[in-house]
């Protein structure tokens, strides 16, 4: 492949992997079972799309991915683009990107919750995943092995079937390096996200692996989804251990090499301080967003229940995957949510959908969300986000005010 015998697409991919692998002193490549690619068009831009189209123009035998390769959310839900006031050029870029990816044999799953909906990896499986929330969940909760693979690297893995063996593909990197002792267990999803954010800030480094003890119950998948996604967003963290819950460290004794370090104690006050830092001075909202990660069917049911018999005064966007949406339609959740005036969108994610342009086109600045990850990201896009419970978000949507 490196010499070009399998065509220029795979040659580019191998050259890219060689550059990355050399930087990290990877000893060799490791076979991967799946690739998951983040490639929203805001990130790709015209230059990125032209690059993909160049690959797509190559002969079929040279351009098609060699392993199952799936996609992260796209930059729009075509059915709702006009209501969101997305512009024609955004939609045109999306259509070009999708056509090029499909020509490469990529499965347009358009989801960041593939571990809940597509084909979760198993313990010890090497994969090349490209959404930080996906990576931290699969490394930690499922025991799979992946680094953060940005779009070009996930695509390269799809084309070659390999990725450089460094970081979280290696046993040594998966050992605990930070002990976090909790004296409080979150209840609501936004609290799980906020706790992940606090621990992420404390770790603050891709190469640190927090080991979390002190929970009084086993979290469920949605709770760990928000917890991990926020930790990855706030701290660039790619893996954590919860002895007794996560598979790589069944007990605290398995989590560290040698004696555990002194514990960093975190409690409810730390989470409340993070929540308060976003709430300061906020009294009204322009838009309410349930996204990042995309909502599970269970979360959609919670949203539908909270909206029952109510009307949204400000736009409420609930965003899920294309895999969950048909179930929501079939079970009446979509109808119940949209009866309130809210929008149920699929296959996109708010921050990957031209968030800055959405703000300008719709006059959105003050945003309420139960997603700690979204709260962390949107400041740079000009929003003033506030992190609230699902109940408080729905209340804010129906009154336009913060309680």
């Amino acid at each position, binding site marked *: 492949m490196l010499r070009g015998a399998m065509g220029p697409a795979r040659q580019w991919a191998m050259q*890219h992997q060689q*550059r*990355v692998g*050399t*930087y*990290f*002193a990877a000893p060799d490549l490791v076979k991967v079972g799946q690739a998951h690619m*983040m*490639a*929203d068009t*805001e*990130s*790709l*831009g*015209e*230059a*990125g799309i032209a*690059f993909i189209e160049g690959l797509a123009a190559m002969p079929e035998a040279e351009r098609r991915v060699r392993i199952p390769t799936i996609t992260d959310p796209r930059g729009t839900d075509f059915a709702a683009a006009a209501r969101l006031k997305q512009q024609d050029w955004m939609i045109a870029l999306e259509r070009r990107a999708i056509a090029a990816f499909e020509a490469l044999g990529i499965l347009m799953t358009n989801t960041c919750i593939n571990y809940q909906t597509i084909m979760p990896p198993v313990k010890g499986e090497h994969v090349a995943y*490209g*959404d*930080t929330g996906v990576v931290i969940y699969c490394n930690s909760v499922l025991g799979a092995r992946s*680094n*953060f*693979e*940005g*779009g*070009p*690297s996930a695509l390269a893995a799809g084309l070659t079937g390999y990725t450089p063996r460094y*970081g979280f593909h290696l046993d040594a990197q998966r050992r605990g390096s930070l002990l976090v002792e909790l004296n409080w267990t979150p209840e609501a999803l936004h609290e799980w996200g906020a706790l992940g954010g606090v621990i992420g800030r404390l770790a*603050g*480094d*891709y*190469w640190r692996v927090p080991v979390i003890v002190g929970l009084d119950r086993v979290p469920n998948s949605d709770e760990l989804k928000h917890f991990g996604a926020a930790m*990855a*967003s706030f*701290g*660039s963290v790619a893996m954590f251990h919860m002895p007794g819950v996560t598979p790589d460290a069944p007990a605290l004794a398995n989590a560290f090499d040698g004696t555990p370090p002194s514990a960093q104690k975190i409690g409810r006050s730390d989470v409340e301080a993070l929540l308060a830092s976003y709430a300061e001075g906020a009294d009204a909202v322009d838009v309410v967003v349930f996204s990042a990660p995309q909502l599970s069917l269970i979360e959609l049911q919670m949203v539908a229940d909270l909206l029952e018999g109510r009307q949204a005064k400000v736009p409420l966007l609930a965003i899920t995957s294309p895999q969950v949406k048909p179930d929501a339609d079939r079970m009446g959740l979509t109808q119940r949510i949209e009866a309130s005036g809210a929008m149920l969108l699929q296959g996109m994610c708010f*921050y*990957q959908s031209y968030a*800055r342009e959405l703000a300008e086109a719709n006059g959105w600045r003050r945003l309420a969300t139960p997603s700690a990850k979204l709260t*962390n*990201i949107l*400041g*740079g*896009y*000009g929003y003033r986000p506030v992190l609230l419970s699902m109940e408080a978000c729905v209340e804010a949507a129906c009154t336009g005010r913060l309680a």
Partner: protein
Amino acid sequence: MNVVREFTATAAMGEKIRGRALVANDGFSARYDLDRVTGTFSRPEHKLHGRSYLGMVLVLDRAKGGVATAWMLNEMAAREVMPAALVLNTVNPIMVQGAAFAGTTLMSGFAEDITRAVPDGALIELDPHAKPPVLRILGEPETGA
């Protein structure tokens, strides 16, 4: 030009480059921190908030956040709304993958905190091909930098 001081790094890629340093003890993510249209730091909490990064050698503490930077560096380079190079105490894979894809000069891994060692506005040179890679301070900050 005289070398005022130099620092070796554990890893680097890209071309040898010379430019003015834009320095802060803060993290870096193209999606989280930048207005990539105007070429400024847009995240209000960032220590470089409001400052232009165009043509500057960014000297920051660590890579942070998500995966978007891997595409965005290439997109920024194509539109020429790009820093000249990236210098970080600690990288994550995304920063390396993005630099590899975009052909950006990147250097990381120093014996001391590089954000404290390099004055903001100093003229610096990155030599990724030296063994080991080296960052050289060539001159003091320009007046008003």
